[in-house]
Protein backbone atom coordinates (compact mmCIF):
# COMPACT_ATOMS: atom_id res chain seq x y z
CA UNK A 1 0.00 0.00 0.00
CA UNK A 2 1.25 3.46 -0.92
CA UNK A 3 2.53 5.69 1.86
CA UNK A 4 1.07 8.97 3.08
CA UNK A 5 3.78 11.47 2.20
CA UNK A 6 4.43 14.70 4.07
CA UNK A 7 5.57 17.65 1.97
CA UNK A 8 6.21 21.38 2.10
CA UNK A 9 4.38 23.03 -0.77
CA UNK A 10 5.76 26.19 -2.33
CA UNK A 11 3.42 28.12 -4.60
CA UNK A 12 5.00 29.41 -7.80
CA UNK A 13 4.03 31.00 -11.10
CA UNK A 14 3.72 29.48 -14.54
CA UNK A 15 3.20 31.49 -17.70
CA UNK A 16 0.92 28.92 -19.35
CA UNK A 17 -1.36 28.69 -16.31
CA UNK A 18 -1.36 32.49 -15.99
CA UNK A 19 -2.37 32.91 -19.62
CA UNK A 20 -5.16 30.34 -19.27
CA UNK A 21 -6.45 32.14 -16.16
CA UNK A 22 -6.56 35.43 -18.00
CA UNK A 23 -8.78 33.85 -20.64
CA UNK A 24 -11.07 32.16 -18.11
CA UNK A 25 -10.89 31.02 -14.49
CA UNK A 26 -13.74 28.65 -15.21
CA UNK A 27 -12.26 26.73 -18.14
CA UNK A 28 -11.02 23.14 -18.16
CA UNK A 29 -7.72 24.49 -19.47
CA UNK A 30 -7.25 26.61 -16.32
CA UNK A 31 -8.35 23.77 -14.04
CA UNK A 32 -5.99 21.29 -15.69
CA UNK A 33 -3.05 23.69 -15.35
CA UNK A 34 -3.92 24.76 -11.78
CA UNK A 35 -5.17 21.65 -10.00
CA UNK A 36 -1.70 20.18 -10.15
CA UNK A 37 1.05 19.28 -7.72
CA UNK A 38 4.63 18.90 -8.93
CA UNK A 39 6.58 16.29 -7.01
CA UNK A 40 10.07 14.91 -6.79
CA UNK A 41 10.60 11.49 -8.39
CA UNK A 42 11.24 9.86 -5.01
CA UNK A 43 7.95 11.15 -3.62
CA UNK A 44 6.14 9.88 -6.72
CA UNK A 45 7.65 6.43 -6.07
CA UNK A 46 6.64 6.50 -2.40
CA UNK A 47 3.08 7.36 -3.45
CA UNK A 48 3.19 4.70 -6.19
CA UNK A 49 1.90 7.48 -8.44
CA UNK A 50 2.34 8.24 -12.11
CA UNK A 51 1.78 11.52 -13.89
CA UNK A 52 -1.93 12.36 -13.81
CA UNK A 53 -2.61 10.26 -10.67
CA UNK A 54 -5.18 12.02 -8.51
CA UNK A 55 -3.86 12.87 -5.08
CA UNK A 56 -5.60 14.11 -1.97
CA UNK A 57 -3.63 17.08 -0.62
CA UNK A 58 -4.67 17.79 2.92
CA UNK A 59 -3.73 19.89 5.93
CA UNK A 60 -5.35 21.60 8.93
CA UNK A 61 -6.86 24.29 6.70
CA UNK A 62 -8.44 22.28 3.93
CA UNK A 63 -8.06 19.69 1.25
CA UNK A 64 -8.14 19.43 -2.51
CA UNK A 65 -7.85 16.63 -5.02
CA UNK A 66 -5.32 17.49 -7.72
CA UNK A 67 -3.25 15.66 -10.34
CA UNK A 68 0.36 14.62 -9.72
CA UNK A 69 3.16 15.65 -12.06
CA UNK A 70 6.79 14.56 -11.87
CA UNK A 71 9.20 17.43 -11.47
CA UNK A 72 11.80 18.04 -14.18
CA UNK A 73 13.94 19.77 -11.57
CA UNK A 74 16.87 18.19 -9.70
CA UNK A 75 16.14 16.10 -6.64
CA UNK A 76 13.99 17.84 -4.05
CA UNK A 77 12.24 15.11 -2.00
CA UNK A 78 9.72 16.49 0.49
CA UNK A 79 9.39 19.72 -1.48
CA UNK A 80 6.38 20.10 -3.77
CA UNK A 81 5.20 22.92 -6.01
CA UNK A 82 1.73 24.19 -6.86
CA UNK A 83 0.85 27.11 -9.09
CA UNK A 84 -0.86 30.08 -7.41
CA UNK A 85 -4.58 29.40 -7.76
CA UNK A 86 -7.80 28.87 -5.81
CA UNK A 87 -6.69 25.23 -5.39
CA UNK A 88 -3.43 26.07 -3.61
CA UNK A 89 -5.16 28.80 -1.60
CA UNK A 90 -7.47 26.19 -0.06
CA UNK A 91 -4.43 25.03 1.90
CA UNK A 92 -3.06 28.37 3.12
CA UNK A 93 -3.23 28.54 6.88
CA UNK A 94 -5.84 30.55 8.80
CA UNK A 95 -3.39 31.73 11.41
CA UNK A 96 -1.42 33.84 8.95
CA UNK A 97 -4.42 36.10 8.46
CA UNK A 98 -3.09 38.56 11.04
CA UNK A 99 -1.63 41.17 8.78
CA UNK A 100 1.58 39.41 7.87
CA UNK A 101 2.36 37.81 4.51
CA UNK A 102 0.30 34.67 3.91
CA UNK A 103 2.30 31.47 4.23
CA UNK A 104 1.74 30.30 0.68
CA UNK A 105 5.43 29.65 0.15
CA UNK A 106 5.67 27.08 2.96
CA UNK A 107 2.47 25.06 3.18
CA UNK A 108 2.73 21.86 5.22
CA UNK A 109 0.48 19.12 3.85
CA UNK A 110 0.12 15.38 3.45
CA UNK A 111 -0.39 13.57 0.16
CA UNK A 112 -2.18 10.32 -0.42
CA UNK A 113 -3.58 8.52 -3.42
CA UNK A 114 -7.36 8.65 -3.88
CA UNK A 115 -10.07 6.21 -4.81
CA UNK A 116 -10.29 5.79 -8.56
CA UNK A 117 -13.70 7.44 -8.75
CA UNK A 118 -12.58 10.61 -6.94
CA UNK A 119 -12.38 13.53 -9.31
CA UNK A 120 -10.19 16.62 -9.32
CA UNK A 121 -11.81 19.27 -7.11
CA UNK A 122 -13.96 21.44 -9.36
CA UNK A 123 -13.88 25.25 -9.28
CA UNK A 124 -17.62 25.18 -8.46
CA UNK A 125 -16.84 23.12 -5.34
CA UNK A 126 -14.20 25.66 -4.27
CA UNK A 127 -16.71 28.48 -4.81
CA UNK A 128 -19.32 26.66 -2.74
CA UNK A 129 -16.83 26.25 0.13
CA UNK A 130 -16.03 29.97 0.09
CA UNK A 131 -19.68 30.93 0.09
CA UNK A 132 -20.81 28.40 2.72
Amino acid at each position, binding site marked *: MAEVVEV*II*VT*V*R*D*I*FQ*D*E*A*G*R*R*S*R*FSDEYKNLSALIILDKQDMIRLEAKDGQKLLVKND*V*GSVVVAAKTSE*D*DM*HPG*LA*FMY*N*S*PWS*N*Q*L*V*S*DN*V*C*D*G*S*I*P*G*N*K*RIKATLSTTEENMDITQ*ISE*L*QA*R*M*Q*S
Partner: protein
Amino acid sequence: MAICTGCSLLCEDIVATYENGALTHVKNLCRKGHGHFQAAFTERTVPMIDGEQVTLDRAIAKAAEILKSAKSPLLYGWSNSTLEAQAAGIKLAEKLGATMDDTSSFCQGILMERILSGKIPSCTLDDVRNYADTSIFWGSDPSSSHPRHLSRFSYYPRGEKRQKSYEEERTCIVVDVRKSATARLCSNYYFRVAPGGDAQFMEAILAVLEGKIPKVGDKKKMIELGSHLKKTKWGVIFPGPGMIDSLQDKMELFERLLAKLNEITTFKVIPMVGHYNMRGFNELMLEKTGFINRVSFKGGAAAHGPEHSALVAAKTCDAALVIGSDPLSALPFCTAHALARLPLIAIDPRRSLTTDAAKVVIPSAISGLEAGGTAVRMDGVKIKFEPIIDTNLLSDEQILTRIMEAI
Protein backbone atom coordinates in the same frame (compact mmCIF):
# COMPACT_ATOMS: atom_id res chain seq x y z
CA MET B 1 1.19 51.53 -30.71
CA ALA B 2 -0.63 50.23 -27.67
CA ILE B 3 0.46 49.75 -24.06
CA CYS B 4 0.08 46.32 -22.49
CA THR B 5 -1.33 46.44 -18.95
CA GLY B 6 -0.79 42.69 -18.51
CA CYS B 7 2.07 43.22 -16.04
CA SER B 8 4.17 45.99 -14.50
CA LEU B 9 6.58 46.21 -17.45
CA LEU B 10 3.86 48.18 -19.29
CA CYS B 11 5.35 47.35 -22.70
CA GLU B 12 4.79 50.35 -24.97
CA ASP B 13 5.52 48.82 -28.36
CA ILE B 14 2.44 46.66 -28.88
CA VAL B 15 0.73 46.54 -32.24
CA ALA B 16 -2.75 45.04 -32.07
CA THR B 17 -5.52 44.95 -34.62
CA TYR B 18 -9.10 44.19 -33.66
CA GLU B 19 -11.70 43.44 -36.32
CA ASN B 20 -15.33 42.44 -35.79
CA GLY B 21 -14.82 41.85 -32.10
CA ALA B 22 -11.71 39.69 -32.41
CA LEU B 23 -7.98 40.14 -32.10
CA THR B 24 -6.75 39.59 -35.67
CA HIS B 25 -3.10 40.66 -35.60
CA VAL B 26 -0.58 41.32 -32.85
CA LYS B 27 3.09 42.21 -32.70
CA ASN B 28 5.45 42.24 -29.69
CA LEU B 29 2.99 40.73 -27.19
CA CYS B 30 4.35 38.03 -24.87
CA ARG B 31 2.23 34.97 -24.07
CA LYS B 32 0.89 36.61 -20.92
CA GLY B 33 0.10 39.84 -22.75
CA HIS B 34 -1.61 37.87 -25.51
CA GLY B 35 -3.89 36.28 -22.90
CA HIS B 36 -4.58 39.75 -21.50
CA PHE B 37 -5.50 41.18 -24.91
CA GLN B 38 -7.65 38.14 -25.82
CA ALA B 39 -9.51 38.54 -22.54
CA ALA B 40 -11.29 41.57 -23.94
CA PHE B 41 -13.65 39.18 -25.71
CA THR B 42 -14.39 36.53 -23.11
CA GLU B 43 -16.51 36.37 -19.99
CA ARG B 44 -17.30 40.07 -19.80
CA THR B 45 -19.41 41.15 -16.85
CA VAL B 46 -22.81 42.85 -16.96
CA PRO B 47 -24.41 44.98 -14.22
CA MET B 48 -25.90 42.62 -11.61
CA ILE B 49 -27.58 42.72 -8.22
CA ASP B 50 -27.97 39.40 -6.39
CA GLY B 51 -27.24 37.49 -9.59
CA GLU B 52 -29.91 39.29 -11.64
CA GLN B 53 -28.98 41.53 -14.53
CA VAL B 54 -29.95 45.16 -13.92
CA THR B 55 -29.23 48.55 -15.46
CA LEU B 56 -25.85 50.16 -14.78
CA ASP B 57 -27.60 53.01 -12.95
CA ARG B 58 -29.29 50.56 -10.56
CA ALA B 59 -26.04 48.71 -9.88
CA ILE B 60 -24.24 51.97 -9.11
CA ALA B 61 -27.09 53.16 -6.89
CA LYS B 62 -27.08 49.85 -4.98
CA ALA B 63 -23.31 50.00 -4.52
CA ALA B 64 -23.63 53.53 -3.13
CA GLU B 65 -26.43 52.41 -0.78
CA ILE B 66 -24.33 49.50 0.58
CA LEU B 67 -21.27 51.67 1.14
CA LYS B 68 -23.26 54.52 2.70
CA SER B 69 -24.94 52.24 5.23
CA ALA B 70 -21.73 50.36 6.14
CA LYS B 71 -19.97 51.32 9.37
CA SER B 72 -16.55 49.93 8.39
CA PRO B 73 -16.26 49.41 4.66
CA LEU B 74 -13.14 47.99 3.00
CA LEU B 75 -11.99 49.21 -0.43
CA TYR B 76 -9.59 46.65 -1.89
CA GLY B 77 -7.80 45.94 -5.16
CA TRP B 78 -6.31 49.02 -6.89
CA SER B 79 -3.14 47.44 -8.34
CA ASN B 80 -4.90 46.97 -11.69
CA SER B 81 -6.39 50.47 -11.75
CA THR B 82 -5.02 53.68 -13.25
CA LEU B 83 -3.62 56.46 -11.08
CA GLU B 84 -6.74 58.47 -11.91
CA ALA B 85 -8.99 55.66 -10.59
CA GLN B 86 -6.79 55.24 -7.51
CA ALA B 87 -7.08 58.98 -6.78
CA ALA B 88 -10.87 58.73 -7.08
CA GLY B 89 -10.75 55.70 -4.75
CA ILE B 90 -8.80 57.61 -2.10
CA LYS B 91 -11.41 60.40 -2.21
CA LEU B 92 -14.16 57.80 -1.82
CA ALA B 93 -12.34 56.17 1.11
CA GLU B 94 -11.94 59.56 2.80
CA LYS B 95 -15.63 60.30 2.34
CA LEU B 96 -16.67 56.91 3.72
CA GLY B 97 -14.08 56.67 6.48
CA ALA B 98 -13.15 53.35 4.87
CA THR B 99 -10.13 51.06 5.09
CA MET B 100 -8.12 50.96 1.88
CA ASP B 101 -5.55 48.35 0.92
CA ASP B 102 -4.00 46.73 -2.13
CA THR B 103 -2.09 43.59 -3.06
CA SER B 104 1.28 45.07 -2.02
CA SER B 105 0.13 44.65 1.58
CA PHE B 106 1.13 40.98 1.51
CA CYS B 107 3.57 40.95 -1.37
CA GLN B 108 6.16 43.59 -2.32
CA GLY B 109 4.98 46.25 0.18
CA ILE B 110 7.74 45.80 2.76
CA LEU B 111 10.37 46.23 0.06
CA MET B 112 8.57 49.01 -1.80
CA GLU B 113 8.36 51.02 1.41
CA ARG B 114 12.17 50.93 1.61
CA ILE B 115 12.59 51.82 -2.06
CA LEU B 116 10.23 54.80 -1.85
CA SER B 117 11.85 56.07 1.35
CA GLY B 118 15.30 55.84 -0.25
CA LYS B 119 16.60 53.25 2.26
CA ILE B 120 17.32 50.87 -0.62
CA PRO B 121 18.94 52.23 -3.81
CA SER B 122 16.93 51.79 -7.00
CA CYS B 123 17.15 52.73 -10.68
CA THR B 124 15.12 52.53 -13.85
CA LEU B 125 14.89 49.58 -16.22
CA ASP B 126 16.44 51.83 -18.88
CA ASP B 127 19.50 52.16 -16.61
CA VAL B 128 19.56 48.36 -16.38
CA ARG B 129 19.53 48.05 -20.18
CA ASN B 130 22.28 50.65 -20.56
CA TYR B 131 24.63 49.77 -17.70
CA ALA B 132 23.93 46.48 -15.90
CA ASP B 133 26.46 43.68 -16.24
CA THR B 134 24.99 41.52 -13.46
CA SER B 135 21.27 40.90 -12.88
CA ILE B 136 20.22 38.80 -9.91
CA PHE B 137 16.72 37.34 -9.98
CA TRP B 138 16.10 36.49 -6.35
CA GLY B 139 12.90 34.55 -5.68
CA SER B 140 11.63 35.79 -9.02
CA ASP B 141 11.11 34.10 -12.37
CA PRO B 142 10.65 36.73 -15.09
CA SER B 143 10.25 34.08 -17.79
CA SER B 144 6.91 33.32 -16.15
CA SER B 145 5.95 36.60 -14.48
CA HIS B 146 7.41 39.34 -16.73
CA PRO B 147 8.22 37.50 -19.97
CA ARG B 148 9.87 40.42 -21.83
CA HIS B 149 12.05 41.53 -18.91
CA LEU B 150 15.11 39.67 -20.16
CA SER B 151 14.70 40.72 -23.79
CA ARG B 152 13.85 44.38 -23.23
CA PHE B 153 16.04 45.24 -20.26
CA SER B 154 18.09 42.80 -18.25
CA TYR B 155 19.85 40.18 -20.38
CA TYR B 156 19.59 40.24 -24.16
CA PRO B 157 19.49 43.91 -25.25
CA ARG B 158 22.52 45.91 -26.34
CA GLY B 159 22.64 48.94 -24.06
CA GLU B 160 24.73 52.09 -24.14
CA LYS B 161 27.61 50.53 -22.15
CA ARG B 162 26.69 46.93 -22.85
CA GLN B 163 27.03 46.49 -26.60
CA LYS B 164 28.32 42.92 -26.20
CA SER B 165 25.31 42.09 -24.08
CA TYR B 166 24.60 38.53 -22.94
CA GLU B 167 27.24 37.07 -25.24
CA GLU B 168 30.07 38.63 -23.24
CA GLU B 169 29.02 41.41 -20.96
CA ARG B 170 25.92 40.41 -19.03
CA THR B 171 25.50 37.70 -16.40
CA CYS B 172 22.20 36.50 -15.02
CA ILE B 173 22.12 34.92 -11.56
CA VAL B 174 19.09 33.15 -10.12
CA VAL B 175 18.50 32.45 -6.42
CA ASP B 176 15.38 30.34 -5.98
CA VAL B 177 13.85 27.31 -4.28
CA ARG B 178 13.33 25.66 -7.67
CA LYS B 179 15.05 25.53 -11.00
CA SER B 180 12.60 27.89 -12.67
CA ALA B 181 12.36 28.68 -16.37
CA THR B 182 14.71 31.63 -15.79
CA ALA B 183 17.14 29.47 -13.77
CA ARG B 184 17.37 27.06 -16.71
CA LEU B 185 18.59 29.95 -18.90
CA CYS B 186 21.53 30.61 -16.61
CA SER B 187 22.09 27.26 -14.94
CA ASN B 188 25.79 27.98 -14.24
CA TYR B 189 24.65 30.76 -11.97
CA TYR B 190 21.67 29.08 -10.31
CA PHE B 191 21.73 28.90 -6.51
CA ARG B 192 19.09 26.77 -4.84
CA VAL B 193 17.89 27.86 -1.40
CA ALA B 194 15.62 25.94 0.93
CA PRO B 195 12.17 27.44 1.59
CA GLY B 196 12.79 30.16 4.16
CA GLY B 197 16.55 29.88 3.64
CA ASP B 198 17.15 33.26 1.96
CA ALA B 199 18.41 34.99 5.12
CA GLN B 200 21.06 32.29 5.59
CA PHE B 201 22.06 32.62 1.95
CA MET B 202 22.42 36.40 2.37
CA GLU B 203 24.63 35.85 5.41
CA ALA B 204 26.75 33.45 3.33
CA ILE B 205 27.20 36.11 0.62
CA LEU B 206 28.11 38.70 3.25
CA ALA B 207 30.66 36.25 4.64
CA VAL B 208 32.39 35.69 1.28
CA LEU B 209 32.36 39.43 0.53
CA GLU B 210 34.18 39.91 3.85
CA GLY B 211 36.68 37.19 2.96
CA LYS B 212 35.26 34.63 5.38
CA ILE B 213 34.21 31.02 4.76
CA PRO B 214 30.43 30.75 4.21
CA LYS B 215 28.48 28.52 6.59
CA VAL B 216 25.89 27.36 4.04
CA GLY B 217 25.91 26.26 0.42
CA ASP B 218 28.62 24.82 -1.77
CA LYS B 219 31.67 26.72 -0.45
CA LYS B 220 33.52 26.75 -3.78
CA LYS B 221 30.45 27.99 -5.64
CA MET B 222 29.77 30.62 -2.99
CA ILE B 223 33.35 31.92 -3.18
CA GLU B 224 33.00 32.10 -6.99
CA LEU B 225 29.78 34.06 -6.52
CA GLY B 226 31.54 36.45 -4.13
CA SER B 227 34.33 37.00 -6.67
CA HIS B 228 31.84 37.65 -9.43
CA LEU B 229 29.93 40.19 -7.34
CA LYS B 230 33.16 41.99 -6.46
CA LYS B 231 34.07 42.23 -10.16
CA THR B 232 30.62 43.50 -11.13
CA LYS B 233 30.69 47.07 -12.45
CA TRP B 234 26.97 47.81 -12.23
CA GLY B 235 24.62 45.26 -10.70
CA VAL B 236 20.93 45.03 -10.00
CA ILE B 237 18.83 42.71 -7.84
CA PHE B 238 15.26 41.91 -8.81
CA PRO B 239 13.53 40.49 -5.72
CA GLY B 240 10.35 38.52 -6.23
CA PRO B 241 7.69 37.22 -3.86
CA GLY B 242 9.93 34.24 -3.00
CA MET B 243 12.55 36.44 -1.37
CA ILE B 244 10.05 38.77 0.32
CA ASP B 245 8.09 35.87 1.81
CA SER B 246 11.24 34.20 3.04
CA LEU B 247 12.77 37.33 4.63
CA GLN B 248 9.67 39.07 6.04
CA ASP B 249 10.94 40.70 9.27
CA LYS B 250 14.60 40.27 8.30
CA MET B 251 14.62 42.94 5.60
CA GLU B 252 17.44 44.77 7.39
CA LEU B 253 19.68 41.87 6.39
CA PHE B 254 18.94 42.70 2.75
CA GLU B 255 19.76 46.36 3.51
CA ARG B 256 23.08 45.20 5.02
CA LEU B 257 23.87 43.12 1.95
CA LEU B 258 23.19 46.09 -0.33
CA ALA B 259 25.28 48.41 1.81
CA LYS B 260 28.16 45.94 1.61
CA LEU B 261 27.81 45.50 -2.16
CA ASN B 262 27.73 49.27 -2.62
CA GLU B 263 30.94 49.65 -0.62
CA ILE B 264 32.60 47.52 -3.30
CA THR B 265 30.72 48.46 -6.47
CA THR B 266 27.29 49.70 -7.62
CA PHE B 267 24.17 47.63 -6.88
CA LYS B 268 20.54 48.73 -7.29
CA VAL B 269 17.20 47.04 -6.59
CA ILE B 270 13.97 46.91 -8.59
CA PRO B 271 11.10 44.94 -7.02
CA MET B 272 9.44 42.51 -9.42
CA VAL B 273 6.02 44.05 -8.99
CA GLY B 274 3.30 41.86 -10.48
CA HIS B 275 0.22 43.99 -11.21
CA TYR B 276 0.56 46.81 -13.68
CA ASN B 277 0.01 49.70 -11.28
CA MET B 278 0.79 48.40 -7.79
CA ARG B 279 3.71 50.79 -7.53
CA GLY B 280 1.45 53.65 -8.65
CA PHE B 281 -0.92 52.90 -5.78
CA ASN B 282 1.95 52.82 -3.29
CA GLU B 283 3.37 56.13 -4.54
CA LEU B 284 -0.01 57.83 -4.59
CA MET B 285 -0.98 56.61 -1.11
CA LEU B 286 2.39 57.72 0.23
CA GLU B 287 1.92 61.17 -1.28
CA LYS B 288 -1.66 61.54 0.04
CA THR B 289 -1.40 59.82 3.43
CA GLY B 290 2.24 59.20 4.30
CA PHE B 291 1.72 55.42 4.07
CA ILE B 292 1.99 53.11 1.07
CA ASN B 293 -0.94 50.79 1.96
CA ARG B 294 -3.05 49.47 4.92
CA VAL B 295 -4.74 52.79 5.60
CA SER B 296 -7.94 53.51 7.50
CA PHE B 297 -9.70 56.85 7.11
CA LYS B 298 -12.10 56.15 9.98
CA GLY B 299 -12.53 59.29 12.07
CA GLY B 300 -11.01 61.50 9.36
CA ALA B 301 -7.22 61.22 9.66
CA ALA B 302 -5.34 58.45 7.87
CA ALA B 303 -4.23 55.66 10.23
CA HIS B 304 -1.87 52.87 9.26
CA GLY B 305 -1.19 49.43 10.67
CA PRO B 306 -1.41 45.66 10.19
CA GLU B 307 -5.00 45.76 11.46
CA HIS B 308 -5.85 47.67 8.27
CA SER B 309 -4.42 44.95 6.03
CA ALA B 310 -7.09 43.49 3.74
CA LEU B 311 -6.39 40.09 5.34
CA VAL B 312 -7.57 41.40 8.71
CA ALA B 313 -10.09 43.98 7.50
CA ALA B 314 -11.93 41.31 5.48
CA LYS B 315 -12.91 39.78 8.83
CA THR B 316 -13.81 43.00 10.62
CA CYS B 317 -15.47 45.11 7.92
CA ASP B 318 -19.20 45.04 7.18
CA ALA B 319 -19.05 45.65 3.41
CA ALA B 320 -16.35 45.59 0.75
CA LEU B 321 -15.72 47.09 -2.64
CA VAL B 322 -13.23 45.16 -4.77
CA ILE B 323 -11.86 46.78 -7.91
CA GLY B 324 -9.82 45.10 -10.65
CA SER B 325 -8.86 42.19 -8.45
CA ASP B 326 -9.98 38.65 -7.73
CA PRO B 327 -9.22 38.08 -4.04
CA LEU B 328 -11.44 34.99 -3.94
CA SER B 329 -8.99 33.38 -6.34
CA ALA B 330 -5.77 34.88 -5.10
CA LEU B 331 -6.01 35.17 -1.30
CA PRO B 332 -5.93 32.48 1.39
CA PHE B 333 -9.13 30.55 1.92
CA CYS B 334 -9.90 32.28 5.25
CA THR B 335 -9.85 35.72 3.64
CA ALA B 336 -11.78 34.58 0.58
CA HIS B 337 -14.39 33.00 2.85
CA ALA B 338 -14.72 36.18 4.94
CA LEU B 339 -15.10 38.37 1.84
CA ALA B 340 -17.65 36.06 0.23
CA ARG B 341 -19.96 36.43 3.24
CA LEU B 342 -20.03 40.24 3.06
CA PRO B 343 -22.20 42.53 0.99
CA LEU B 344 -19.58 42.63 -1.76
CA ILE B 345 -19.35 45.10 -4.65
CA ALA B 346 -17.11 44.02 -7.54
CA ILE B 347 -16.00 46.47 -10.22
CA ASP B 348 -14.40 44.34 -12.89
CA PRO B 349 -14.41 44.03 -16.69
CA ARG B 350 -14.50 40.24 -16.51
CA ARG B 351 -16.13 37.39 -14.64
CA SER B 352 -14.13 36.04 -11.71
CA LEU B 353 -14.69 34.09 -8.50
CA THR B 354 -15.14 37.47 -6.81
CA THR B 355 -17.78 38.74 -9.26
CA ASP B 356 -19.61 35.41 -8.90
CA ALA B 357 -19.85 35.95 -5.12
CA ALA B 358 -20.63 39.67 -5.28
CA LYS B 359 -23.98 41.18 -4.36
CA VAL B 360 -23.37 43.96 -6.89
CA VAL B 361 -21.32 43.66 -10.07
CA ILE B 362 -20.37 46.75 -12.06
CA PRO B 363 -18.71 46.15 -15.45
CA SER B 364 -15.82 48.41 -16.37
CA ALA B 365 -13.67 49.16 -19.39
CA ILE B 366 -10.29 47.38 -19.53
CA SER B 367 -7.52 49.89 -18.79
CA GLY B 368 -5.08 50.16 -21.67
CA LEU B 369 -7.45 48.55 -24.16
CA GLU B 370 -10.75 50.36 -23.64
CA ALA B 371 -9.83 53.14 -21.21
CA GLY B 372 -6.89 55.50 -21.04
CA GLY B 373 -5.02 56.73 -18.02
CA THR B 374 -1.65 56.75 -16.29
CA ALA B 375 0.30 54.03 -14.50
CA VAL B 376 3.69 53.64 -12.83
CA ARG B 377 6.00 50.94 -14.16
CA MET B 378 7.77 48.62 -11.68
CA ASP B 379 10.80 50.96 -11.71
CA GLY B 380 8.86 54.16 -11.01
CA VAL B 381 8.58 55.47 -14.58
CA LYS B 382 5.17 57.03 -15.20
CA ILE B 383 3.47 55.86 -18.41
CA LYS B 384 0.39 57.37 -20.02
CA PHE B 385 -1.83 55.37 -22.33
CA GLU B 386 -4.79 55.84 -24.63
CA PRO B 387 -7.55 53.32 -25.36
CA ILE B 388 -7.31 51.31 -28.59
CA ILE B 389 -10.84 49.86 -28.60
CA ASP B 390 -14.02 51.95 -28.64
CA THR B 391 -16.46 51.09 -25.88
CA ASN B 392 -19.51 52.46 -24.10
CA LEU B 393 -18.29 51.00 -20.82
CA LEU B 394 -17.26 53.38 -18.05
CA SER B 395 -13.68 53.47 -16.79
CA ASP B 396 -12.93 52.60 -13.14
CA GLU B 397 -12.47 56.31 -12.44
CA GLN B 398 -15.86 57.20 -13.91
CA ILE B 399 -17.60 54.43 -11.94
CA LEU B 400 -16.01 55.51 -8.65
CA THR B 401 -16.95 59.13 -9.33
CA ARG B 402 -20.56 58.09 -10.01
CA ILE B 403 -20.67 56.05 -6.79
CA MET B 404 -19.30 59.00 -4.83
CA GLU B 405 -21.85 61.35 -6.34
CA ALA B 406 -24.62 58.93 -5.33
CA ILE B 407 -23.50 58.75 -1.68
